[in-house]
């Protein structure tokens, strides 16, 4: 077992290193702007006082290494600095209330999408080249090509018009779980539809890849039922690629969440980020970008670890 733990520790270390470099990029990107950041954000007509205020707020008179170290230690203690647009308001304050909402939406969508996509993917692999397979495949290919907001507005048009679900997903703090699930249903369904298509196609490819291996043919020649072949023989070996597929798509949810939150006026991180981009509120954007990037890196890391753990050849190496 020892080398498994060592492997996991190694991967974690690599992930942390990636996160560190990502944080350097996210922080250092402001340095890409030629000239003075404060002046550029405020434009030509800015008063010298306003420019000086932003400079003070971002410590622009300090060297970049000092600023970065201060920022990083702040972040590690949960302090992301203060917002530029809303004078003096701590960024962590603005983020914290929305972070929960975004995670709720992502988990809600994942809870619907993962079982649905895996079932569909397995069924499609089982009946491949049938009419069901063709229809499912071309529907999935089309769904992948749709912009998220198109799917979202179609759902609003069809489901919210009929009065079945609210088209604006306001989330009052007082709402209980059932109420929250009901209000967030349309955003979650949009994300589910977008992600399911990807996941289904990749699951199908992973399983079909396995079905061509000799031991599956052997199981078939024994006269085993096709469903048993898939569930008992193919599925255990498909865990690694499927775990990868799931993690990749959950990572994809992170990007999808931004557009969907804006469509449904859902009070999450994505909406805050879009608002902050147009206000050029750099501390807020940096904080949210770091959170999204961290989630992305961690999900990819998890996929890596799971696919190693599910592979006996890697687990019991000679």
């Amino acid at each position, binding site marked *: 077992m020892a080398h498994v733990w060592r492997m996991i520790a190694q991967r974690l270390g690599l992930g942390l290193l990636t996160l560190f470099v990502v944080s350097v990029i996210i922080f250092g*990107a402001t340095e890409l702007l030629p000239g003075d950041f404060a002046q550029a954000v405020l434009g030509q007509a800015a008063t010298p006082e306003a420019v000086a205020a932003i400079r003070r707020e971002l410590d622009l008179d300090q060297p970049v290494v000092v600023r970065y170290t201060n920022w990083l230690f702040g972040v590690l203690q949960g302090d992301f600095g203060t917002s530029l647009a809303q004078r003096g308001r701590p960024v962590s304050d603005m983020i914290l209330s929305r972070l929960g909402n975004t995670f709720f939406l992502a988990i809600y969508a994942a809870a619907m999408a993962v079982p649905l996509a895996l079932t569909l993917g397995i069924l499609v692999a089982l009946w491949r080249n049938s009419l069901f397979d063709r229809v499912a495949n071309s529907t999935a*290919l089309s769904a992948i090509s*749709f912009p998220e907001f198109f799917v979202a*507005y179609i759902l609003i048009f069809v489901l919210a*018009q009929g009065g079945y679900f609210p088209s604006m997903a306001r989330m009052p703090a007082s709402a209980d779980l059932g109420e929250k699930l009901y209000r967030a249903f349309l955003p979650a369904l949009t994300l589910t539809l977008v992600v399911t298509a990807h996941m289904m196609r990749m699951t199908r490819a992973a399983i079909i890849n396995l079905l061509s291996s000799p031991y599956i043919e052997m199981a078939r020649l024994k006269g085993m039922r096709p469903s048993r072949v898939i569930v008992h023989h193919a599925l255990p070996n498909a865990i690694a690629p499927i775990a990868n597929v799931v993690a990749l798509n959950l990572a994809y949810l992170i990007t999808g969440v931004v*557009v969907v939150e804006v469509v449904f006026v859902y009070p999450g991180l994505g909406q805050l980020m879009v608002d902050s981009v147009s206000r050029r509120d750099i501390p807020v954007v940096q904080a949210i*970008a770091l959170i999204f990037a961290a989630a992305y*890196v961690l999900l990819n890391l998890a996929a890596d670890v799971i696919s190693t753990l599910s592979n006996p050849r890697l687990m019991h190496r000679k």
Partner: protein
Amino acid sequence: MTILTFFITFAVFLAVSIGAAWGFRAVATTLTRGTMQRALRTAPLTACFGMLVILIYLIIALLAPVIAPFPERAVIGSQFMPWSSTHWLGTDALGRDMFSRMIYGTRNTVGIAFATTALAFLIGSVLGLLAATVGGWLDQGLSRLVDVLMAIPSLIFALLLLTIFGTSILTLIVVIAVIDSTRVFRLSRAVAEGVVVMDYIEAARLRGEGLWYLITREILPNVTAPLVAEFGLRFCFVFLSISALSFLGLGIQPPTADWGSMVRENATLITFGDITPLLPAGAIALLTVAVNFVVDWQLYRASGLKE
């Protein structure tokens, strides 16, 4: 009720597009000769449909000022006028003709997406081929840099860069092109890697050919096929991310007619049961589906895959 009409419209749309695709294949096979004709005859209906749609979009983009009944930015009526014989799709939130803006939008949205993809390919494939040919520290450095850049989700990265550089069409094109060139770099480096070890490259090196000759004359011709397919796929991704950014109000800025921002500007109409704002979104979806269909066919042909 709305659900029923929705499905009927969908079925009619499906039937019409199958018919159009079939007709397109019939016409195209009579107009072409030789290998081209043979390729078209065996093309699946989905690919024909894709080619037809791309052709129509191209014509509309090129002839936009001729087709559009009103100018792109002129306010010609009151806001949110319903569909009529003069204003086919009504007017938008400022009283501009929706139909004309849709037509001009083809030119702007598709043109900008195309320019961005081309730039991404220029950066990505030149660096990728260089990395594969030169190897050593250049390859290591570029590859690790790309690894790190790809660890940040692309939309999030684009949003971060747009905050810093501000939103204008030029920054949009450069930012998206740079982010997407990392993906092109990965592919072109991987494909070129397999070509660089060939004997004829060794022979050319021994002949004393320069780096430029090696890349353009020996390597490039052997990696074009996968790169062309990738161009189609990349175009879809770029097109979708530019539309998403425009929809968020951070991409192509008004008053330039653009499909993403048209959806946002007129989105309130949807809650009143008017489908007009869905049309620009549908136009985006239709083009991406079309390109995907054609790329799928080309990949199938290139791989020689017969299931």
